């Protein structure tokens, strides 16, 4: 059975680029437009990885990481933050929330796949 990855971003272009890259590598990909939708999509799913943006409407990425980590089924699921934010204090917040890694946009498909394969 292949890996299922949830990608969360309010930009449909970003979601498409991430999905294009991951599906091209053979992964199953689910999409959500913000943290709230991500929690709904993730409910009852067996996810191998979550890739989330930070700045999103309704629920930001850092809060989403905290909420997912509070759920037993996502306690050890790798979560990568993919954002334009590169500030050290924001990274620290992500780390404290329980993120596995931090990728600054824009991403290169090759690099994203390298990181994804490393954390899976």
């Amino acid at each position, binding site marked *: 059975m292949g890996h299922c990855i949830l990608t969360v*971003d309010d*930009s449909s*272009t*970003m979601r498409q*680029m991430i999905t*294009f*890259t991951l599906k091209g590598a053979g992964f199953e990909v689910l999409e959500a437009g913000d943290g709230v939708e991500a929690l709904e999509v993730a409910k009852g799913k067996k996810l191998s990885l979550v890739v989330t943006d930070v*700045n999103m409407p309704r629920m930001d990425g850092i809060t989403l990481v905290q909420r997912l980590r509070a759920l037993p089924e996502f306690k050890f699921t790798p979560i990568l933050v993919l954002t*334009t*934010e*590169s*500030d050290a204090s924001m*990274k620290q917040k*992500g*780390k404290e929330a329980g*993120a*596995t*890694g*931090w*990728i*600054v*946009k*824009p*991403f*290169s*498909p*090759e*690099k994203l796949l390298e*990181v994804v394969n*490393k*954390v899976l």
Partner: protein
Amino acid sequence: MSRWFSSTPASGPALGLEPVAPAAALGEALLRLAAREAAMLEGQVNFLTPELLQVDSLVREAAGTLEEALRSLDRSVQGQHALVEEVQAAMNISLEGSQESSGTASFGHAIMGTLEHLLGHMSEISESTELLVSEVNDIRERSQRMENMLEEVAEIAGRTHLLSLNASIEAAHARQFGAGFAVVAGEVSKLADRSTALSSTLQEQVQGTRLALERTDAHVHTIASKDLNLAQKSRGESEALVKALEASNGTVTGLVAQLEANARQISEQVGHVVRSLQFEDLVHQTLMACLKELGNLQEQAEAWKALEAGLGAGEPAAAGLARLEGRLGEIEASRVQFRAVKSGTLEAGEVDLF
């Protein structure tokens, strides 16, 4: 770390105006507010200018990269088409000087046809040759037996002749009583002579048959030699076909390697396209920050308009200025302190695994 604005906010102490402030105090307060507003405006211009320049830079870079990537993709795809055509051509092998070309399937079919033809021919010739050899051997044996029989006939003729000679001698001894016997002996002698002549003729015929058999043997050897020539020719043709196939395989292998290299190049260009298309998100976030700042400018303008309206309606200047200062403070506090997008380029961002 790049802040939205670098200048220190001109937030001085509260106005603290008396209900009825002297004109000098009002003028001073007004000057302070004007300075604060000027500082805010400067900070906002300092923020908006690089943000908008960044948008321009990102859009230009994305457009340039996309254009180059698409041109490169177009070249790669055209190259791919040409290579595929070359592969197809390489797989159509011309057979030894023939203008006709055929694919790998008919190429294999040609080899099999040649070999089957050869085998069929060899098999037929082999069967015929075996039959011929068998017949020749049979004739040779019969001929040998005839020779033996002729030798016996010759011996009988010799003995008959001797017998007739003895009979003639005995007839001479018997004088007049042997006259009839001498006639018989003479006839027997004649028969013996005819028998000897016939035997000799037959011997000649048998020798002629033997010579014919030797010639037949020679013909059989010639046929066998022709079979060998045909086999060698077929072998040569098969080797030529196999060499042509090997050469074709070499060409196809080289072309497939080029196709793989081309595919890698296309994949790389697609990666550039994926990276460049993310400019939409970067530009969107930058423009949202600009709009937020423009909203602040709008609110500042409205705060000044409210002062103007209040003063026009007879509101005490001190109260109006105090309200304006309070509002400007609120607007300043609500401003985002960090740029939404730090990267002014579309180069891939850094990765940090915790």
